[in-house]
């Protein structure tokens, strides 16, 4: 069997980037969650917030480590698997990736050690500052990467002479048309991911009758954040949808499952289709009447544009884009419903007593990760057949690397990443099974630099507790 090298290069990049994005999504969300939790601990002096902080810090640290390692691989893949893309897009994308390292990574590297190991070595306020800086670092990192990827979706600020790309406006490259919408969409997705993870683990403890104080606080915090965030996410998502209809119509045409240049009126909202790309039609479709017009055109009888508006050689594969979009949107609807349900249960004082709700939270623990992955599949498969939309096709961007080299490295990646994922899951489940550790009831010494290295703040938590008891 002969396999096309360009297909293998794409599968390899899709696999490595899909694996990678799981961890930064968790890191961005958890870093800010940890900053909020530590702020609450410093403000209220309630030890449960410190317990929550410590518990999620371990999981954050593991995720952060895997995220960094798997992110480095991607930079090499640009050059190795997509050399023509790197050659052409380098002048625009290269500086943004370098700036990510110089701003975000340096900031994170400077403060991560204090955040992970400094709770009893520096004062609480200085430690809180370190946590905030790591959270800011993760946001900066997201900002640069989203800027680079959004430039690939909606390129701007460049001129092309003899096949070579020259930057004419850095401002337009960085603040390209889709970036202002995609950045908040991704950051909110990361925060939602963390909120549902936190709430899900708390719900699990409540159902098992363990660590009840910790569990109640995490469920209360997680559901409160998730409820506010999902409303914002739905709003941002709709604005982004409008922007993508304008800048990348083929993607949204594929995402909605319509082929005709104009759909019937009123348009249904399709939940299930079997697309036939060759004959440009759906073999089978199930949808809700009127809902397509209402949701997509904001009118009762509006018509929706289909994929036939895009020339065949510029069309993405409808099936991938459609189902990725349905998974993301379906999970968003479920999240919204759970957010509303959490408010209702709060009003009735049954947030911790309603077993069906707690089970739903447990089931939704990985929902943020799945929705984020699906969203990235919409973004990347919907951009096809382009790697830089309207400028460079994916097939023209691939390196002239033999198929066997790509296949062997792909197998290598699958093996190594399976070990990473297994280790992450084993250790995370072990942390969850063990539960939160005891935390001292009071905040420790002041966070001033003067106090940072005094011996009494170097005490272990156990000694601090024993001194307070005595």
């Amino acid at each position, binding site marked *: 069997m002969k396999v096309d090298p360009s297909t293998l290069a794409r599968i390899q990049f899709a696999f490595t980037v899909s694996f990678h994005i799981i961890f930064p999504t968790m890191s961005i969300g958890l870093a800010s969650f940890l900053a909020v939790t530590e702020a609450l601990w410093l403000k209220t002096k309630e030890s449960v917030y410190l317990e929550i902080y410590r518990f999620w810090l371990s999981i954050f640290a593991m995720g952060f480590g895997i995220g960094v390692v798997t992110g480095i691989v991607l930079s090499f893949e640009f050059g190795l698997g997509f050399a023509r893309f790197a050659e052409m897009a380098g002048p625009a994308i290269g500086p943004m990736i370098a700036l990510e390292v110089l701003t975000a990574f340096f900031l994170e590297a400077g403060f991560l050690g204090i955040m992970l190991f400094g709770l009893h070595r520096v004062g609480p306020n200085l430690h809180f500052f370190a946590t905030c800086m790591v959270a800011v670092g993760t946001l900066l990192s997201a900002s640069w990467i989203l800027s680079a990827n959004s430039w690939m979706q909606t390129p701007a600020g460049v001129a092309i002479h003899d096949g070579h790309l020259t930057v004419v406006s850095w401002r337009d490259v960085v603040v390209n048309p889709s970036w202002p919408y995609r950045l908040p969409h991704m950051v909110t997705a990361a925060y939602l991911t963390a909120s549902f993870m936190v709430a899900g683990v708390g719900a699990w403890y409540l159902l098992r009758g363990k660590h009840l104080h910790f569990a109640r606080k995490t469920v209360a915090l997680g559901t409160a954040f998730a409820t506010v965030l999902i*409303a914002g996410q739905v709003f941002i998502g709709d604005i982004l949808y409008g922007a993508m209809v304008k800048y990348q119509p083929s993607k949204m045409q594929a995402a909605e499952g319509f082929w005709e240049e104009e759909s019937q009126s009123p348009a249904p909202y399709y939940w299930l289709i079997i697309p036939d790309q060759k004959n440009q039609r759906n073999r089978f479709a199930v949808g809700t009447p009127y809902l397509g017009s209402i949701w997509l055109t904001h009118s009762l009888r509006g018509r929706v544009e289909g994929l036939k508006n895009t020339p065949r050689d510029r069309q993405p594969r409808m099936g991938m884009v459609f189902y990725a979009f349905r998974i993301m949107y379906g999970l968003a609807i479920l999240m919204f419903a759970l957010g509303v349900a959490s408010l209702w249960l709060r009003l*009735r004082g049954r947030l911790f007593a309603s077993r069906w709700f707690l089970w739903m939270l447990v089931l939704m623990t990985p929902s943020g990760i799945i929705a984020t992955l699906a969203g990235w599949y919409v973004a990347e498969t919907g951009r096809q057949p382009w790697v830089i939309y309207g400028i460079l096709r994916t097939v023209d961007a691939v390196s002239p690397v033999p198929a066997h080299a790509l296949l062997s490295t792909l197998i290598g990646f699958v093996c190594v990443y399976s070990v990473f994922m297994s280790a992450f899951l084993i250790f995370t489940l072990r942390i969850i099974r063990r539960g939160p550790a005891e935390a001292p009831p009071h905040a420790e010494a002041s966070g001033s630099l003067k106090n940072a290295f005094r011996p009494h703040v170097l005490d272990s938590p156990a000694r601090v507790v024993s001194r307070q008891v005595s």
Partner: protein
Amino acid sequence: MRLTANKRKPETLGGIGFSTLRRTIMGGSKDLSQFAGLAGTALLGALFFFLIIGVFGLQFAIGGLLVFVVGAVLISQAFPAEGAEP
């Protein structure tokens, strides 16, 4: 001991388990009110969802988002949910 009517156990009245009946009626009304509450919440949630995704226009979407977020924050603060666990 002689039982007076008002001291009689409710179960003995007319051969019908009065407390069972009361429980059923009360339980039924509780279920009904719960169902009504749930249905009302679902409708309100759906209305906010349609508002926020801009079905009624951008101004209503922004208004709906603000009302939802402020409402969610106020409910979360006013009802910290320190209830019984399952």
